[in-house]
Structure formats: structure tokens, C-alpha cells
């Protein structure tokens, strides 16, 4: 970091490129390895660069690459969410609002409008924060990450994408291209809830995402994932299993919430104690299940 007269800071010396294709971007990333980083919304990387947490010498602006800007829905194949699509584009998208309202509400919770108008959902995932809001919403939808790299393309389930705080499965030279979300089954919907200390502009104390498919008054399938209560966004298979095949009632909901609480491993920090967070996991899981179920019933009627 450099200080200017008046104490203002500027970033270190930087190279900026804005390739037009995935192949070009991969080539630059591969060439510079750990010294290169993709630039989508910039709302994490620029802050980290100023703080000296990350110090790439090459920023690869991926916003000119068509696949990374894509946001297209198809009733059979689902949603293709380009890695550089901004939160605002996601939550204003008619198909996302209709078929994946939990994802829309997660994208609408991040930061402020200023942040949402730039921050990319793909960037939220790649930043690898355990508290990322859109990641649990993606996990419960069964989303897969489509990655391009020097050795070709691969897909990784989003629940396996984050490894530890700030670290993902991306290797040097690799680029997240799109997030692929399956088409919603009939009578399905999702929800995402978050608790923060203030009204806005805060990091999750707990985030809970739920997606479920109903079959009459029974749950056909359910997925639950949590933010901010483990070293990475946490998929809780047992919570979904507590609901699957059962009648949706207080007992099954309580069992799912219990499973979510048991799976979480929160820490004490300035936003809350571990004990409080565990309690809130249960509260938000119960509420998110009920909201997702109500939406699924309405989706069935539509």
C-alpha cells in the first residue's frame, strides 16, 4: 500500500486485463498463477488488496466474457448463473424470483444497494467466506460450479467448493465460469434467512437456507445449509433427511432444526457466542422450512 500526501492510500502496482473469452482469461491466470486473480464485482478483492490480505499483481476483469455474464433459465435444464452476474441482476431476474426466491433473497441481503449493484454471486462463492449469504442458498438448490482451467473444464458441487475460510477448490489458473442450478421440481421452493446484529450492512451471525419439494402434506425431498456456523458454508444432510418422506409438522421440523444445530460448530466472536448461534440455527432453520413449504404449496397452485 502506498500513502499519498494527506494520508490517502492507493493500491500497489497493478496490471489490468479485460479478456473477451474464457480461454484468454485462463491463459492469463495460468501464466501468473498465484499472482493473478479474477475481478468480478471487486467488492471483496479490492478491500483485501487495500488491507494487504491478498496481493495479486494481475487483475483479470472477467466481466467482458459472455458466459460469465449469462443469466438464463430453461424449464428443463434450470438456471445458468454466470460467475460475474451481479447480485442485483440475480434478484431482479423474473425467473429467479419465481423459481428460486430463496436465492433472490440471499442476494438481496448482502451489504447495501451499492454493494449489491456490483458484487457477483460467483464472487461471493469464490471469496470462500464461511458467512457468505448466497452460498447456502445455492447449496440447497443442488447447484454445481462449472470451472475452466488449463486442463479443461470440471464441475464441483457447490457444497464441496469451499474448503476453509478464504480457500476454495480453485487451483491456480482456474476460473469459475458459471453456477448451474437444476430446474425446480414441481411443488418445490426455497428460502434463506439471516440474523445480523444491525438492520443492514453486517455479516451473518447465522444464515439458514432451505429448499424442499412437497408431496401433498409430506416432504418429498429437503436440503438445509448454514452460513457462519462452521469453517465453511455447511450442508447438513441429516437435517434434510429428518424431513424427507415425513409429514411436515412440528415434530419433523423440530427434528430437522435439531440436526442443523447439532451439525453446526460456531465460535464465540464479537457478533455472538457459540451458544447463542447454535440456538439461532434452530430458530432460523424452523422458520426457513416453514417459508419454503408455504412457497412450495403456492408454487404447486401456480
Amino acid at each position, binding site marked *: 500500500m502506498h500513502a499519498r500526501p494527506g494520508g490517502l492510500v492507493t493500491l500497489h502496482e497493478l496490471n489490468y486485463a479485460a479478456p473477451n473469452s474464457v480461454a484468454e482469461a485462463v491463459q492469463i491466470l495460468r501464466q501468473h498463477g498465484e499472482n493473478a486473480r479474477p475481478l468480478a464485482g471487486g467488492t471483496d478483492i479490492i478491500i483485501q488488496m487495500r488491507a494487504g490480505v491478498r496481493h495479486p499483481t494481475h487483475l483479470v476483469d472477467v466481466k467482458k466474457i459472455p458466459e460469465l455474464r449469462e443469466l438464463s433459465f430453461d424449464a428443463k435444464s434450470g438456471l445458468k448463473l454466470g460467475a460475474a452476474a451481479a447480485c442485483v441482476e440475480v434478484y431482479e431476474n423474473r425467473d429467479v424470483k419465481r423459481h428460486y426466491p430463496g436465492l433472490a433473497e440471499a442476494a438481496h441481503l448482502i451489504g447495501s444497494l451499492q454493494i449489491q449493484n456490483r458484487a457477483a454471486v460467483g464472487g461471493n462463492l469464490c471469496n470462500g467466506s464461511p458467512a457468505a449469504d448466497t452460498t447456502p442458498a445455492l447449496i440447497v438448490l443442488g447447484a454445481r460450479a462449472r470451472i475452466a482451467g488449463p486442463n479443461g473444464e470440471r464441475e464441483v458441487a457447490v457444497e464441496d467448493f469451499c474448503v476453509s475460510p478464504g480457500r476454495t477448490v480453485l487451483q491456480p489458473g482456474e476460473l469459475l465460469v458459471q453456477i448451474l442450478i437444476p430446474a425446480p421440481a414441481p411443488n418445490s421452493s426455497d428460502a434463506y434467512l439471516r440474523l445480523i446484529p444491525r438492520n*443492514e450492512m453486517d455479516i451473518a451471525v447465522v444464515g439458514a437456507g432451505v429448499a424442499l419439494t412437497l408431496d401433498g402434506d409430506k416432504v418429498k425431498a429437503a436440503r438445509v445449509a448454514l452460513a457462519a456456523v462452521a469453517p465453511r458454508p455447511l450442508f447438513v444432510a441429516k437435517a434434510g433427511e429428518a424431513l424427507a418422506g415425513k409429514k411436515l409438522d412440528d415434530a419433523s421440523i423440530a427434528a430437522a432444526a435439531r440436526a442443523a444445530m447439532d451439525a453446526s460448530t460456531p465460535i464465540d466472536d464479537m457478533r455472538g457466542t457459540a451458544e447463542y448461534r447454535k440456538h439461532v440455527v434452530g430458530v432460523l432453520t424452523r422458520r426457513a422450512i416453514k417459508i419454503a413449504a408455504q412457497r412450495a404449496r403456492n408454487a404447486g397452485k401456480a
Partner: protein
Amino acid sequence: MKKVLVEANINGETVEFLCEARQSLLETLRDVLNLTGSKEGCLTGDCGACSVMVDGRVVCSCLMLGAEAAGKNITTVEGLATGNQLHPLQQKFLENAALQCGICTPGFLVAAKALIDKNPNPSEEEVRYALAGNLCRCTGYDKIVRAVIEAAKAVKSGAAESRAGAR
């Protein structure tokens, strides 16, 4: 030191400039283009003092690079007034004492403009939510919220007047 040649539309004018790759849009506006209306508050995207509109959406210019402005339509606080005529937002901020030190004011004006451009009749709650990314240490926000609501009404009735005059 590598520089990037950028062409952008700033406050309605096509502008071509050179900036270093490492310069944020905020630095570029202030140091390269002498548009010092946008302010540096936190450099972490929390305070909104650097808010500008890019293609109609309010963003933190401290979290964009100057290079990323290429091809964009950018509105800064300098673009609100028409010659010597203040924008209704600016007028209502003055009338309502919605500023004291004024450092947050450019950011609030831009964020408020972005709101009323899209939502001409915002409720108080909608105003507070839309301005959640802007911090003020002086006013306690109440007068800012009142000013924005009054300005929205003034813009609406002004638009009605223009339409009536045009008939």
C-alpha cells in the same frame, strides 16, 4: 507505471482519460478528472461517501477501478444540478437542514437520486432501506429522510408541471 486509456460518459459528457491500473474510480474522479465531489470515507464500501451512479445504479466508487469505467454512463454529485439550478434533492437537503459537515452529502444525494429515479414515490421505509449504505455522523438521518421524501414529491409535481406546460 502502466496506464489504461478509458472512454466513459461522465455526467452526460464523453470523456477520455488515462489512469493507472491501480487507481480506483474514486481516485480517478478526484485526482485525474478533478471531480472532487465524491468523497473518501472508509475505502471499505461501508460508508457510501464515494457513491456514484454507474449505468443508473448506485455503487461505491472506491470499490471500482478507474479502468472499469470504460463504456459506462457515470453520474456524480456534480451532475445533479443543471447549470445554476439545483436539483430538487439538493434544494430539499438545504431547506431541511439535511447536512451539517457535508462530507456524507454527495453520497446521499447520489444514492437518493438513484432511488427516486426508479421509485418516484418511496415510503419512509423504502428511503431508509435504499440509503442503508450511506452513513452520516452529524444529522441523525431524520432530516435526510424527510428531504428525500419531499424531493421525490417535488420531482413528481415538477414533472406534472412540465407536462402541463407542454400542452
